């Protein structure tokens, strides 16, 4: 049996009058309106209901639609940008559905990893919503959120070595599109009904952590967190950073394991740090690669010198005068090969401060003079 949480409102009623009062509250984020149609009317095309979600991973882009027709219960699926398989079934049937899915896949030699059931989650079948309206609703939400989510964007860039600011808008579109199917438009918050934008803002808070887990794997993110904490605890007691063997001891792992884990993170960081600094052509990339990498390569003295002069001019002639933090951040990040998080730890500032400092200096570089 489907428990509908939020049905369409065909006629004016006391609830609608209350909505009108709530929407006048200046503390509330606005309802989105597409072509004169309120977000609620658009999303009501697919009423939200309580469901159980079966969630798993399969190799080679397995499409869960294939399994739906053979299940003995009503089921829905939807593609998420993370590539994981999700099937929703009516509340109370999640565990039975998981067993059927595993059996179905086993009979066809399709691997199923880590199948788990999440019971009693809100779900709406967005396939029922006019796709044009839905796409424009998601786009309107991203247009509204993108300029207002500066801290989330900075966290993504600072914490995730492979994410650049220019990637975030399209990532945000996918994220909003993904999480729309679990938006419960009947949920009440302190300021009344939680509208679509308010819901998305709440989801954005954990987005950087979710992406970090997706990018590095849950273990790598946890490793990095434990490492940071161990270094901080050690530094407080000893007034210096731990050496390799001390750190391995603190983390209760061998030095070999420690090196292997650090290599994973450094490799990921290296991919980012070898990227062009200010959108210059690919040939300039090698200027930013540390000397260990360019040993033996022919050196382009002239280009190195021009670039250095441009960077120093940018760091020296800031609006508030010389900007040593800007130069230090840029130097540690691009020449010493540190991730922004590492540079932040070495400078004893927040990663976002390093990001801001690098952006400040690179933004002032006269790229025209570098060609």
């Amino acid at each position, binding site marked *: 049996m489907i428990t509908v949480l939020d049905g369409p409102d065909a006629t004016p009623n006391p609830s609608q009058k209350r909505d009108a009062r709530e929407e006048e509250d200046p503390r509330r984020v606005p309802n989105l309106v597409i072509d004169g149609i309120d977000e609620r009317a658009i999303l009501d095309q697919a009423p939200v209901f309580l469901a159980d979600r079966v969630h798993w991973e399969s190799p080679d882009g397995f499409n869960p639609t294939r399994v739906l027709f053979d299940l003995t219960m009503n089921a829905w699926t939807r593609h998420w940008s993370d590539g994981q398989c999700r099937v929703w079934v009516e509340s109370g049937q999640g565990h039975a559905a998981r067993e059927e899915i595993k059996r179905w896949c086993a009979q066809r030699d399709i691997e199923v990893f880590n199948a788990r059931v999440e019971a009693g989650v809100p779900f709406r079948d967005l396939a029922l919503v006019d796709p044009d309206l839905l796409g424009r609703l998601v786009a309107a939400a991203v247009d509204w959120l993108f300029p207002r989510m500066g801290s989330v964007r900075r966290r993504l860039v600072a914490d995730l070595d492979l994410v650049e600011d220019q990637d975030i808008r399209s990532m945000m579109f996918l994220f909003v599109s993904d999480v729309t199917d679990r938006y419960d438009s009947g949920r009440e918050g302190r300021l009344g009904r939680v509208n679509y934008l308010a819901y998305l803002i709440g989801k954005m808070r954990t987005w950087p952590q979710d992406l970090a887990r997706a990018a590095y794997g849950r273990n790598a993110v946890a490793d990095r967190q434990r490492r940071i904490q161990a270094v901080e605890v050690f*530094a407080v007691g000893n007034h210096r*950073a731990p050496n390799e063997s001390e750190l391995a001891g603190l983390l209760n792992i061998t030095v070999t394991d420690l090196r292997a884990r650090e290599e994973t993170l450094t490799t990921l960081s290296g991919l980012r740090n070898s990227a062009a600094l200010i959108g210059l052509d690919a040939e300039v990339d090698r200027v930013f690669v540390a000397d260990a990498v360019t040993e033996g390569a022919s050196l382009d003295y002239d280009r190195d010198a021009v670039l250095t002069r441009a960077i120093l001019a940018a760091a020296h002639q800031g609006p508030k005068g010389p900007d040593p933090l800007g*130069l230090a951040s840029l130097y540690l990040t691009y020449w*010493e*090969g540190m991730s922004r998080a590492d540079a932040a730890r070495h400078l004893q500032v927040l990663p976002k401060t390093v990001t801001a400092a690098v952006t400040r200096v690179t933004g002032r570089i006269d790229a025209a003079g570098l060609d």
Partner: protein
Amino acid sequence: MRGPSPLPITPASMHSTVEVGLRLAATPASSTQAVATLAAIIAEHPGVGIRLAGVEPVGSRVHFTLAIALGCLEDVVSAGMASRVALTALHDIVESLRILDPALVAMPRPESIEAQSARALVARHRGIGEAALAALSEDLFSVG
């Protein structure tokens, strides 16, 4: 994967110094005038920590890597006066020594031949100017 970190600063101390590496690529033709200019800039900014961190012959040139201190961590982060002066000195060096194609580079690792050569030269000569001049002569090649 890079080897042991050549980090120029020691974390966990606000009094650690932040240094940047600057490579000067001297040719026999440019060397004398350039070294004199460098010595003059260093004399103009006595409060700025500048040391010779690496010396290495590469083809027809000799690379000098200067480690230029931007100041202590606290000063760099707060854009204190000492750091501003250091950055100005660095800017002056880069602008005045264009003849040597100055370029930011990673600091040489302490165990590298480049760094060992620099240490040996500095130990035997007074100041960077003399050490650099010596490096340009056959003296460099007698350094173990």
